[in-house]
């Protein structure tokens, strides 16, 4: 059997890496990812404790943490996207920039089915202010 301390050390290492990332990185998406890493590190500890006491309560807490993490990510990413003004979808590249039209990648890109293209354009139009 692996002693419990080793799980705790693993949790601490992951938590510290996550904390370092959250403090040091500038990109908001990277900060959010580091926070997810910290939450995951905490669940390692909780589940090790759950095993240690032979009870399922630790697992219960970890489930709650996961649910919260998922909710928090959805909301935080939404706020980041809204604040940074990234709301325009990547379909904007459809307007065929001149330098792209020549590159091999662009020529060989997947040809969308006609209905798809028309629909995506209308989608892009609707999203543009």
């Amino acid at each position: 059997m692996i002693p419990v301390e080793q799980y705790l050390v693993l949790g601490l290492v992951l938590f510290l890496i996550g904390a370092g990332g959250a403090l040091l990185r500038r990109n908001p998406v990277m900060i959010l990812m580091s926070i997810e890493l910290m939450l995951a590190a905490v669940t390692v500890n909780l589940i090790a404790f759950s095993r240690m006491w032979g009870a399922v309560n630790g697992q219960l807490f970890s489930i709650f943490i996961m649910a919260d993490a998922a909710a928090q990510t959805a909301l935080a990413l939404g706020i980041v996207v809204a604040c940074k003004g990234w709301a325009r979808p990547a379909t904007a590249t459809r307007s065929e920039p001149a330098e792209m039209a020549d590159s091999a990648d662009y020529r060989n890109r997947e040809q969308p089915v006609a209905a798809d293209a028309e629909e995506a354009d209308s989608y892009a139009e609707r999203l543009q202010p």
Partner: protein
Amino acid sequence: MSQALEILKAIAVGFLGAIGVVAFLLAGVIWVSVMDRRIAQSLGSESAQDAINLPEQLQRLALSLKSYMRGLLAQDAGRFLPWLASLISVAAGVIAFASLSFGPAVHLADFNTGLIFIFGAGFLAIHGEVLARGFSVQNAPLAGLARNAMRVASFEAGAALALVSGVILSGSISLKQIVAAQLDQGAWFFFLAPVGFLLYLASSIAGIDTVSRPLARTAVECGENPADRPGAFRWPFGSLGATIHLLIGAGLATTVFWGGWLRPFASFRDHFAGTPVELLDAMPPLAMAATAVYCRRVASSEKDAVRKQLMSIASAISAGLFVILAGVLFAPPAAIAAVHGAFWFLAKMAVYIYGFLWLRARIPQFRFGRPIRAAWNFLIPLAAINVVAVAAALVTRERWDWSPALSTLVMTAIALGIAIWLALHDMSQTTAYGVEP
């Protein structure tokens, strides 16, 4: 020394199991695509005029495997990353398939949270698809990809809610215990939760629709040599992922609604006079013998050399299966249960897949907005109502001693009534919006 042996054994079992699963999945994919072609052909659809037969299918698979390997060997990141990403989706399919159990003791990974695990693996597969597409073509029309992911996710939600009826009836999320509960209660959950099964079928047809269509397209559309197009290898492997998705969906439906490895009338036990052989256990070998004879007769009258050879191979395989299935009848009961269980499981899966493809070929393909709206306005609410109805039926059975047939009938009628009301409501809403043509 024993430790080394232990590790070697674990590695060997895992490795052999993985190889077996991959081989089985590849065979299943070829079978599905040939079957899909044949169904499209029988419908006389225009795109199916150039029939793709088995050798050509094999050739295409080999071609895609070759370009896949080329991606593996390529040094530059432009090829390696999409290869890795498409590996994620195939690997997720393999681990999900490995956690299905084909018999009372025939399984690779015995999870007691199998149902959730398989859905988690499904999400991993979506990851693979998204990343593979995003990496290989920088300016790919990602909106279409996002719509596909959204579509798969919403219908997966519907399918998950439909499967919850099986969880309620059995009180477990372990696939083995769900099957055991069906044996205990003496009825497949298809009969106790028919609405749940229909919802599952509908959501899987609608969810997989656009994703796996490319498999049915002709070789012309992917160019003369798919390997030459940059990033083209993910075309066959994208649809390979979708087909594996279909196979796993069939496995789940078989397990939860069709009694898994149980044979029909599993609680009916009657022996041949004077022998320990059960009456109904004689059915699989007899069916196989009939198939062998039929294939042999077709092969003798067939003109086309390739088809003739294929039919005789099929006949030989069924004859071999007949020998195995009949021989095992005289083995200990555990062996009978294992071999026949696997036979019934695969047979039910095949029936489900055939029905799935048959239905899908007859349902017109809708554009994006409509199925998604149908999912959120109709399928998911109905699935939620069905969960409540199944639970209510369970309560009436346990507390008020209603008979299973009565409670199921009443609750199914209520759920269907609400479904009709929802559909009418949805239709009136659609015209009110005036969005759809």
